[in-house]
């Protein structure tokens, strides 16, 4: 079966066979593919920049096909609007490093799409093995505009204006338009922004609209081309988030848990996980991934979602240092990533990418039900469509954090009780275990979705 989003590039096709991603290399891409394999594949995969693959012996059915390759499988596909600042920055650096290494071998990276980068064991890798082409002497980088829209513009907006501007990537599927980035940045970002955003935006507008611009072949020497990429590497590498703290960034420092309650909760989560032994798990409201990490004990992968980009950033740094098969992502549970792009099928929603064995949902329910007025039953129905097993913590009204949430609003939640919670979940889940979290008012449940073995 052909993967829907791989329609742009004539060099090959992405196929899904028995749940595995297979890439077909077309005959028209034969020379580039052979050159890549001869000169670049080994150094790029050794540096962890390009996804490794194996060539399949089977004869391709398609007469256009030259080779079939099976890349190492990515456990969970993610998109730039779900990444923290550091994830987008590392993805940008990976893109630049690959192009820089390719130039040394008289090749180029012809696309600089953020969607071609995915995370594997905490590190960004290029997944599009067919993104390479031959370097034509004197030619500028054809992917430069795309690089600025997909990486540099959102990174500069996040670093210099507001971290939340990463969400512009969710609106503009081909990256942040440079004239918009230019307006939003204003005078921030120094000389780097002046060149790559402001001048670049003006040049794109002037020479894109009326055709009055001079039509001539642009030529830059290879040395200048390399210097430009080196300069971009310094600019991207030098971007930093300054003075960022959000409401949940310091959660564990401000939690109402005592040490003993935290330990009790951790022991219970471990015990419940031991019953499920998930190969794939999601953690909704993962914060810095403290409990998500427990699900790694079963040899699989974990996606740790949180609404707070600072918590996700912190989690990512830890994951990257430890090279863990965990993927921290930014996600608002009240408005999860939708299906987008052509026919709404190029980028898929969170649930279409994986059905995890288990979902952890600790200390989140009161935010959804009380802060967001979401009925228990709607939450239960949604969760049961996502997973077979659920480890969920109920936080009662007596809990100090719920009291804080209710302090400034009317209590219109008569059913927000332990019994009401169990009643609402029972059509969708069977309660397998329930235990009080010692030292707190809370209860931890292990549930199994009905209709799932």
């Amino acid at each position, binding site marked *: 079966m052909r993967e829907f989003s791989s329609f742009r590039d004539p060099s090959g096709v992405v196929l899904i066979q028995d749940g595995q991603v297979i890439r077909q290399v077309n005959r028209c891409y034969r020379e580039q593919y052979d050159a890549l394999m001869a000169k670049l594949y080994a150094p790029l995969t050794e540096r962890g920049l390009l996804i490794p693959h194996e060539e399949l012996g089977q004869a391709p059915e398609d007469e256009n096909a030259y080779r079939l390759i099976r890349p190492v499988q990515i456990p969970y596909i993610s998109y730039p609007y779900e990444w923290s600042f550091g994830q987008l920055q590392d993805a940008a650096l990976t893109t630049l490093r690959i192009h820089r290494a390719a130039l040394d071998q008289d090749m180029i990276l012809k696309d600089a799409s953020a969607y071609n980068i995915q995370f594997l064991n905490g590190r960004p890798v290029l997944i599009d093995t067919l993104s390479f082409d031959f370097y034509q002497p004197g030619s*500028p*980088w*054809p992917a*430069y*505009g795309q690089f*600025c829209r997909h990486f540099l513009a959102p990174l500069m907006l996040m670093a210099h204006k507001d971290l939340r501007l990463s969400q512009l990537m969710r609106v503009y599927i081909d990256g942040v338009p440079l004239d918009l980035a230019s307006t939003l940045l204003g005078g921030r970002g120094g000389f780097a922004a002046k*060149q*790559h955003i402001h*001048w*670049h935006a003006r*040049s*794109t*507008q*002037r*020479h*894109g609209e009326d*055709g009055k*611009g001079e*039509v001539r072949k*642009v*030529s*830059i*020497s290879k*040395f*200048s*081309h390399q*210097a*430009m990429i*080196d*300069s971009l590497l310094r600019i991207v590498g030098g971007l930093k988030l300054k003075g960022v703290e959000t409401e949940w960034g310091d959660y564990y420092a401000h939690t109402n848990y005592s040490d003993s309650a935290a330990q009790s909760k951790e022991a219970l989560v471990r015990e419940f996980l031991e019953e499920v032994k998930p190969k794939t798990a999601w953690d909704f409201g993962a914060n810095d991934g403290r409990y998500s990490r427990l699900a790694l004990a079963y040899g699989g992968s974990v996606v740790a979602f949180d609404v707070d980009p600072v918590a996700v950033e912190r989690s990512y740094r830890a994951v990257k240092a430890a090279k863990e098969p965990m993927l921290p992502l930014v996600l608002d549970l009240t408005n999860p990533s939708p299906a987008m792009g052509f026919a709404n099928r190029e980028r898929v929603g969170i649930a279409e990418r994986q059905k995890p064995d288990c979902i952890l949902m600790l200390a989140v329910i009161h935010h959804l039900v009380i802060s967001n007025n979401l009925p228990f039953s709607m939450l239960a129905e949604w969760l049961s469509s996502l997973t077979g097993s659920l480890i969920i913590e109920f936080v009662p009204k007596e809990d100090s954090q719920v009291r804080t949430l209710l302090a400034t609003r009317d209590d219109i939640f008569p059913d927000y009780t332990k019994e009401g919670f169990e009643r609402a979940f029972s059509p969708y889940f069977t309660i397998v275990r329930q235990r009080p979290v010692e030292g707190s008012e809370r209860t931890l449940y292990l549930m199994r979705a009905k209709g799932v073995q």
Partner: protein
Amino acid sequence: MYLDPGFGSMLIQALIAAIAVGGAYLLVFKKRIVGFFKKKGAVEGAGAKEDEGKAAK
């Protein structure tokens, strides 16, 4: 004639790449000066900072 908006991205690279070459030379120059004064010791080190500032301009 309609031009691809990508043409503007190509065109601006001629200017940006030229600036990058200038920047690269300045970096090498700066490293040499810093390296030179580091060898000479702390007294001349203060002078190096001045020169470094000029080089960056």
